[in-house]
């Protein structure tokens, strides 16, 4: 069984009767059994997947209507609720939490006959960019097991890259889909804020986070986006996309398009290999008929500080619900006073979540809000103005997705400020609500490099067209696992 096929090819093959959903799922489960001990992408594997695949095969054989996924195995980041299954957020705090309902993205994919092959690893509560903050241990980069796969949706990127599923859903608050997509050489999209419902996504920083597809090809990403985008009455921040078909016209090319190269995202500190790959991407885009020139977004320099200030504030509020009365592990109330009980429960948070909760209490507090939180909101506002101005002149903006190559596990975990700076190229899309995509572009000394495009709000069509055009210019080696 060829597990390396794209989502679109999978659908074609099952539709034509060349393969059965059951055989494909059986081989996928076998693949997970053989490689995941090394990779640790999965926190939970769906033991019922094979039965679900048989049901879909039955529907196909009996001529019943079958959803567009045809039993495609999709992995789900473990911060999205699937009814009656564990949703841990890679935290000890939610170790035994069984979701009582489906997230909207899950209901939508279920209606399309997708099979959720398992829940995948992440940094605890999506706070981190290496998966090292998972309470269940880090995932490994399939390109080199000593290296981080990126994060926080590391499990999503690893499972797609290592052929343990066909596609995955991650969530992106400051680059958490695009960063691991870049580090694992897969495609990762952070859509326009509001394009995909967040109902059933465990909240971290509501005002900027979005669910996004992780796939092996740009077309697969558009295919998945078609199924999960659009209005949801359970999330009033969603926007009407008028049932846009993101696959339609994806091969329109980029001739005549104007692309701005964000100066601050290729500044000092960018790895020479990343810089050289970016230059090569620019030259290829110019050969395809695009015009590229540098553009400055001055506020990018302050974006990481603004991002961490805003997200910590929202996290401090969101995580206040973890008091062990509604969520948490089972220990007796007897002998505890209210505050000491909650304090004991919160010992179950990992170090990064604990740190961000403290920061989240500090930066918006009376006496400090003016210096930190309010200033961060002002930077967000000014950055949005700058990027809106840039989109008056340019159709797209471009940068390397991450300014550095994937780094070794353990290398930066003790230096939170060094980790901050890895986010410099990705947080702008979140702070401004714009869509952005990471496309695999090069491999340097066995480590992947991704290129990021940004487009104006609700302009995913053009974003995917550009990503597809760039994807077609490269033939990358296969993942060595």
């Amino acid at each position, binding site marked *: 069984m060829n597990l390396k096929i794209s989502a679109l090819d999978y659908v074609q093959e099952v539709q034509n009767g060349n393969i059965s959903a059951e055989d494909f799922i059986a081989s996928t489960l076998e693949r997970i059994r053989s490689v995941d001990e090394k990779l640790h992408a999965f926190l939970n594997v769906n033991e019922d997947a094979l039965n679900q695949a048989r049901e879909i095969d039955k529907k196909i054989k009996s001529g019943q209507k079958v959803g567009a996924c045809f039993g495609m195995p999709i992995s789900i980041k473990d911060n999205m609720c699937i009814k009656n299954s564990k949703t841990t957020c890679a935290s000890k705090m939610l170790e035994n939490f069984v979701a*009582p309902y489906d997230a909207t993205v899950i209901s939508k994919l279920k209606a399309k006959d997708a099979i959720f092959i398992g829940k995948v690893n992440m940094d605890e509560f999506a706070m981190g960019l290496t998966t090292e903050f998972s309470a269940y241990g880090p995932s490994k980069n399939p390109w080199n097991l000593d290296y981080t796969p990126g994060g926080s949706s590391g499990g999503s990127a690893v499972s797609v890259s290592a052929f343990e599923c066909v596609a995955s859903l991650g969530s992106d608050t400051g680059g958490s889909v695009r960063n691991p997509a870049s580090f694992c050489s897969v495609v990762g999209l952070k859509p326009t804020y509001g394009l995909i419902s967040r109902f059933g996504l465990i909240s971290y920083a509501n005002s900027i986070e979005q669910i996004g597809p992780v796939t092996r090809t740009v077309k697969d990403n558009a295919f998945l986006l078609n199924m999960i985008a659009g209005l949801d009455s359970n999330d009033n921040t969603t926007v009407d996309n008028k049932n846009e078909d993101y696959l339609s016209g994806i091969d329109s090319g980029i001739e005549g398009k104007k692309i701005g190269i964000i100066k601050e995202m290729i500044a000092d500190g960018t790895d020479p290999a990343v810089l050289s790959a970016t230059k090569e991407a620019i030259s290829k885009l110019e050969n395809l008929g695009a015009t590229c020139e540098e553009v400055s977004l001055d506020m990018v320099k302050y974006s990481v*500080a603004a991002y*961490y200030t805003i997200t910590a504030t929202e996290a401090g509020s969101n995580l206040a619900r973890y008091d062990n009365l509604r969520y948490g592990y089972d220990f007796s109330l007897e002998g505890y006073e*209210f505050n000491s009980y909650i304090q004991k429960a919160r010992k179950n948070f990992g170090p990064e979540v*604990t*740190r961000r909760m403290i920061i989240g209490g500090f*930066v918006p507090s009376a006496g400090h809000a003016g210096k930190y939180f309010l200033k961060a909101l002002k930077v967000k506002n000014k950055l949005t103005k700058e990027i809106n101005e840039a989109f008056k002149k340019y159709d797209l903006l471009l940068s390397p997705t991450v300014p550095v190559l994937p780094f070794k596990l353990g290398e930066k975990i003790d230096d939170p400020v060094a980790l901050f700076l890895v986010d410099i190229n990705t947080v702008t899309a979140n702070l401004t609500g714009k869509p952005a995509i990471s496309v695999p572009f090069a491999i340097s000394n066995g480590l992947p490099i991704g290129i990021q495009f940004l487009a104006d709000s609700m302009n995913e069509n053009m974003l995917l067209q550009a990503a597809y055009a760039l994807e077609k210019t490269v033939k990358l080696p296969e993942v060595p696992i």
Partner: protein
Amino acid sequence: MVTEEEIEKVAKLMKIEVDDHKEYVDKVHAMIDYFDILDSAGVEDEEITMQEIPITDLREDEYIPFEEKLIEKLNHYKGTYVRAPKMS
């Protein structure tokens, strides 16, 4: 400059026990110090805009029955009440 005492005080208010000074206070200190860069952004005169959703765009405010008893999913409940430890 933020002081260690301020960090410890906020941690207490957030009901977090800071037993490992290096892991929490020192690292939080370094993270907050980094945010000082915001002082040089020159955004003092900038406005803060919020996303506004007109009330007419919200879904109907109606009761949607849930098929299960959610209270039974809690660790500590008694009848229809959530049980919590005593407040001192």
